[in-house]
């Protein structure tokens, strides 16, 4: 636990220093997306990596946050800082209501149900044209402001997003190493044993599903206010799968792993632009190789690789 907090502090310093290191520029914009995706991956990891429950509908919660914030701040001129928590609460309530029946399902059935949920939400974004603008999207969403500072540049957005991302990471690290986090992992390893020890697995699963949806919704609101334009295409089934890939590639049950997965999957397409036409093939092949040779994800695979190359050094790869 101490080790995690130390690592987190170092990571936070790095995040704070990054704009100086990279001298602003285009990369800042990409790092904003890394931040948003990290938040989403951490949220999904709480559900999948800790509680062992899959969701193929998380892009839907992300989209709901974005659209609720977008609609409230444009059509109804509500202050963005007020719209964000309202959106989060609404999404939390929806997730809680859906969670009770859906989380009774296991394995493939849960995957199918959450997939269906994501698709329904996607269809709603497309079809309720009066509200969402339909497939052509919703524009003119205001930037966030604090005390006269408007978050309208890449560097400002970088700090805004990463403030939230770090908060979500710290929050999740605390949770993982606590009574509730242990109960979640216990349910994952042996639900029946956890129940026998007095853990109410059902309620716990709904709680973490709701929490995960709320974090995704906040990420969605932030996305809407930094992009100022949203359209349904960003919140489709593809993106749910991409989030799942980030969590698995990064390492199930590791908060830092989710960052690594999000960073890799966000940065890789940018680098692969140089080899356009082949980018999608290389991308796919890289993911396959990584899953095959790093079954524990990057967060465990990289230290193992390091030890292999630089000899038998002691150390543990878990974070």
């Amino acid at each position: 636990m101490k080790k995690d907090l130390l690592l987190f502090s170092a990571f936070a310093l790095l995040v704070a220093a990054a704009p100086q290191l990279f001298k602003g520029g285009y990369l800042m914009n990409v790092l904003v997306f890394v931040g948003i995706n990290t938040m989403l991956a951490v949220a999904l990891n709480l559900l999948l990596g800790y509680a062992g429950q899959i969701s193929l509908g998380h892009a839907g919660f992300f989209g709901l946050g974005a659209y609720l914030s977008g609609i409230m701040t444009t059509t109804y001129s509500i202050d963005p800082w007020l719209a964000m928590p309202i959106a989060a609460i609404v999404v939390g309530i929806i997730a809680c209501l859906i969670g009770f029946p859906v989380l009774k399902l296991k394995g493939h059935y849960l995957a199918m149900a959450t997939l269906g949920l994501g698709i329904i939400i996607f269809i709603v974004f497309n079809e309720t044209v009066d509200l969402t603008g339909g497939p052509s999207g919703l524009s003119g969403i205001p930037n966030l402001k604090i005390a006269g500072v408007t978050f309208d540049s890449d560097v400002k957005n970088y700090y805004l997003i990463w403030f939230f991302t770090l908060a979500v990471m710290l929050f999740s690290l605390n949770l993982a190493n606590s009574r509730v986090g242990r109960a979640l992992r216990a349910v994952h390893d042996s639900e029946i044993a956890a129940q026998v020890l007095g853990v109410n697995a059902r309620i716990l699963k709904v709680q973490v599903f709701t929490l995960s949806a709320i974090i995704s919704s906040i990420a969605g609101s932030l996305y809407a206010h930094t992009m100022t334009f949203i359209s349904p295409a960003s919140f489709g089934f593809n993106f749910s799968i991409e989030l799942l890939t980030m969590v698995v590639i990064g390492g199930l049950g590791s908060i830092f792993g989710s960052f690594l997965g999000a960073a890799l999957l966000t940065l890789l397409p940018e680098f692969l632009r140089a080899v356009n036409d082949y980018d999608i093939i290389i991308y796919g092949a890289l993911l396959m190789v990584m899953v095959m040779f790093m079954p524990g994800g990057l967060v465990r695979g990289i230290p193992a690789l390091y030890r292999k190359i630089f000899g038998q050094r002691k150390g543990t790869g878990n974070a």
Partner: protein
Amino acid sequence: MLEVSGITQIFGGVTALDSVSFKIAKGDITGVIGPNGAGKTTLFNIISGIYHQTAGTVYLEGKDVTGFPPERLARLSMVRTFQNIELFGGMTVLENVMVGMHTKSTSGLLACSFKAPWSISEERRIRQGALKWLDFTGITDLADQKAGNLPFGKGRLLEIARALAVEPRIILMDEPAAGLNSQETLALAALIKRIRDMDITVVLVEHDMELVMDICDRIVVLNLGKKLAEGTPQQIQESPEVIAAYLGDDD
């Protein structure tokens, strides 16, 4: 302490249990024995709330707990262990026992995530409590090991330590000696007696007759889903029905 009354369980066409009734007194070690297929595991699963019986009632400390889910029974101070130890393999030995203190702690999701002051002091208390149970079962030196890497015998001790962390008044053990060598079985017998000495009622399903006869105060014999006999180890050893049932069974 625990009473089952008229427990019947029918799986499809198979009657696994046929109107089984008995009472277990507080502070006793009670053995449930019987040939394979007698219905012992089924009975345990019903008492611990994992199966829902076709008919019959379970009373815990006089309270009708029929149909209560396991997590509710844990809060009423009943806990069990499993024949094929069910550890949380990805967690450390200490963390496993800390999960056992779940019902004795209250910090919720938000308190934990925001590190509320009371959740920090509670966390300290949970850790100390868990260490106490590791010490009681003699596996303190394994505290930081992954539970999934433990040898079977140590895993068994961990499962018992974890169950004790619930601070139960009654503990059900499903074949605690299965898979243990003779030395480990002796240590287990001593451990079970120490558990009883803490005023915890012990019920165990067991195939190791030597162990059963050594530690049990009372024995319930099941055969083909029916209660065949009940009594002290001495009475059971001398019971003609029990002898006949065991001789008729080539197990």
